[in-house]
């Protein structure tokens, strides 16, 4: 699914990622953990093609294709989805028509016919159940006036509509109360299958008790300093990051 080799990247003039190697197979869930400033969000953004992140070295192959050579919208249409940590508000653009625009962009790419608003509504009605969103969710402007929880739910709704092959969840758990976290996590779990993969970027172990990872990677200072199974997350929760970070420096 995804192969990352020696990825280095900077924001402005600060080198944030200092050589990341990672391989993800279909059906796998990988958690990327790490203290603040370790580069975990930057990693997700680099994969999605956020223009504020400049990749300086390394290669990324997504389904065999050179991901870094693709424009962000082409990456998205190829099946890379990022749930944003801070979803942006777009006044005046109706959520349902935004979703349809995105959905149709993908269909067009696949040589399928675009759906009109009525046809698309049938799909939407199914999808909003996944995130337990009220009907008026669709009629409001994209993220405008949404609470933090609603914004995250809207991200997962978009994921449900676009059915990505690789989902990057960038601190989707941050700012969520327990109920919202449950709804969002259950939504993600329902979308998970043996053919798609998830990268879960998070600071806390909390979300990982809902979405169980196959692998956990701890990132510090732009490098993966430890990889393991889901137990690693529990250990991090118990002991914090410091013991790993100092061990990482020694290694």
């Amino acid at each position, binding site marked *: 699914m995804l192969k990352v080799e020696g990825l280095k990247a900077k924001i402005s003039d600060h080198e944030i990622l200092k050589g990341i190697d990672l391989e993800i197979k279909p059906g796998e869930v990988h958690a990327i953990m790490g203290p603040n400033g370790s580069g975990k969000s930057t990693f997700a953004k680099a994969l999605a093609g956020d223009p504020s992140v400049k990749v300086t070295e390394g290669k990324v192959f997504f389904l065999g294709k050179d991901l870094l050579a693709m424009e962000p919208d082409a990456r998205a249409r190829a099946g890379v989805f990022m749930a944003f940590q801070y*979803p942006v508000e777009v006044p005046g*653009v109706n959520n349902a028509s935004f979703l349809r625009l995105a959905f149709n*962009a993908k269909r067009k790419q696949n040589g399928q016919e675009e759906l009109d608003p009525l046809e698309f509504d049938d799909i939407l009605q199914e999808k909003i159940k996944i995130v337990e969103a009220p009907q008026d969710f669709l009629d409001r402007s994209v993220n405008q006036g949404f609470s933090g929880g609603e914004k995250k739910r809207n991200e997962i709704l*978009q994921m449900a509509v676009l059915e990505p092959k690789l989902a990057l969840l960038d601190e989707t758990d941050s700012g969520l109360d327990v109920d919202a976290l449950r709804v969002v996590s259950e939504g993600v779990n329902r979308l998970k299958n043996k053919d798609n993969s998830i990268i879960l970027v998070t600071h806390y172990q909390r979300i990982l008790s809902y979405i169980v990872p196959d692998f956990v990677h701890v990132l510090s200072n732009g490098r993966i300093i430890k990889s393991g199974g889901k137990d690693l997350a529990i250990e991090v929760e118990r002991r914090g990051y410091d013991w790993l970070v100092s061990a990482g420096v020694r290694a």
Partner: protein
Amino acid sequence: MSEKTIRIEDLVNRDYQYGFKTDLEPGMTVRGLDENTIRLISNHKKEPPFMLDYRLKAFRQWQKMKEPHWAHVHYPEIDYQNVIYYSEPKVMEKKLKSLDEVDPELKRTFERLGIPLTEQKRLAGVAVDAIFDSVSVATTFKAKLKESGVIFCSFSEAVQEYPELIEKYLSSVVPVADNFYAALNSAVFTDGSFVYIPKNTRCPMELSSYFRINTENSGQFERTLIICEENSHVSYLEGCTAPKFDTNQLHAAVVELVALDNAEIKYSTVQNWYAGDPVTGKGGIYNFVTKRGKCLGRNSKISWTQVETGSAITWKYPSCLLIGDDSVGEFFSVALTAGRQQADTGTKMIHLGKNTRSTIISKGISAGRSNNNYRGLVQISKNAEDSKNFTQCDSLLIGSLANANTFPYMEIQNPSAQVEHEATTSRISDDQLFYFQQRGISREDAMSSIINGFCKAVFRELPGEFAVEASQLLGLKLEGTVG
């Protein structure tokens, strides 16, 4: 950062698709301006004496006036002696008896502009008056409209056929001495459209005028007069384009609307004059226009909707004089500037009658190195008891080099007035564009979607067929492709 700005620039500098020129043998052409010019025009049009008197009076007035410079726009001095005041293709010299006689080249020109001069085609529900340089080429559906008593014809024809209406209403809304360009227009105007809706009549079709300036260095000075009698209703739309030239063309129009008791006039504009070269700013139309409506009758209503995307310079303030008690004035505007365009546009709502209401919704979009200004006046006079205004001015900036200003003026002389003003300025952010892109939507479609969302409140005021066109026009202007 600069890299991104350049990319946005690329998006806003699409080619102007109406920039072609029609080659026709020129007929009468008059360059330069003195009393003789005016006599020539009036004589050529075989006008009644009151018209020549009117024009000469206006010209003498104009000579005493100075070009206004209070607007927030900059341009080199205009040489009024180098402007072509009358330009008529030779094929238009003889009077046409029917639409079939319209010169094929002229027909093709309008067809290319999307305005078929036939009564069967696409715009079957819309009557069109097509104006090419200084003359009206054809007016469709005249006979059909006449059945319900509606008069829709070129201004020149109206002067011949309905002189009493012209004499009564010409300059009854915009006095000759109102401003420099209005005086100039009054002296030299050549053609335009005339609409008269009799009592208790709902005009059965959309009426529309299409203005095309073709000849280099020519000015277009058109005059539009719309009179809506008691309990009547009309919806009118104008469109405009011009070829690409390196020199500027002057467009100084005057539009007058009169609404009597319970009458309603809806006036919509989709303006897409050539805007000049986006990089050097060379060429393009100077659009110096005076538009004003008089809500003369009780409970009358005048509604201006404009989508301004073209012109090198726009100087235009469609206004309402709310004279009749309970009358209503509305102004809905989208002004888009890109490249080196400059716009100073807005409205005046003058509340004179009791319980008069006005609404102003202005959406300014500035891209490139353009300069986009809203200028508006809300005046509530001493006798305008219980009057209300609501104003909303929103500016959207694209890129970091564009400029937007808002100049709202309020003069409130009656304590019972309720006046609200809201203003916002926002920027299409790279974060927004990236968000769209991350969902698989191209940068171009993202821009178009955000801009359409921003303009929604205005677009929905346009007559159905044109709302789509306007949104596509903005799309073309900004991106190239719109769904």
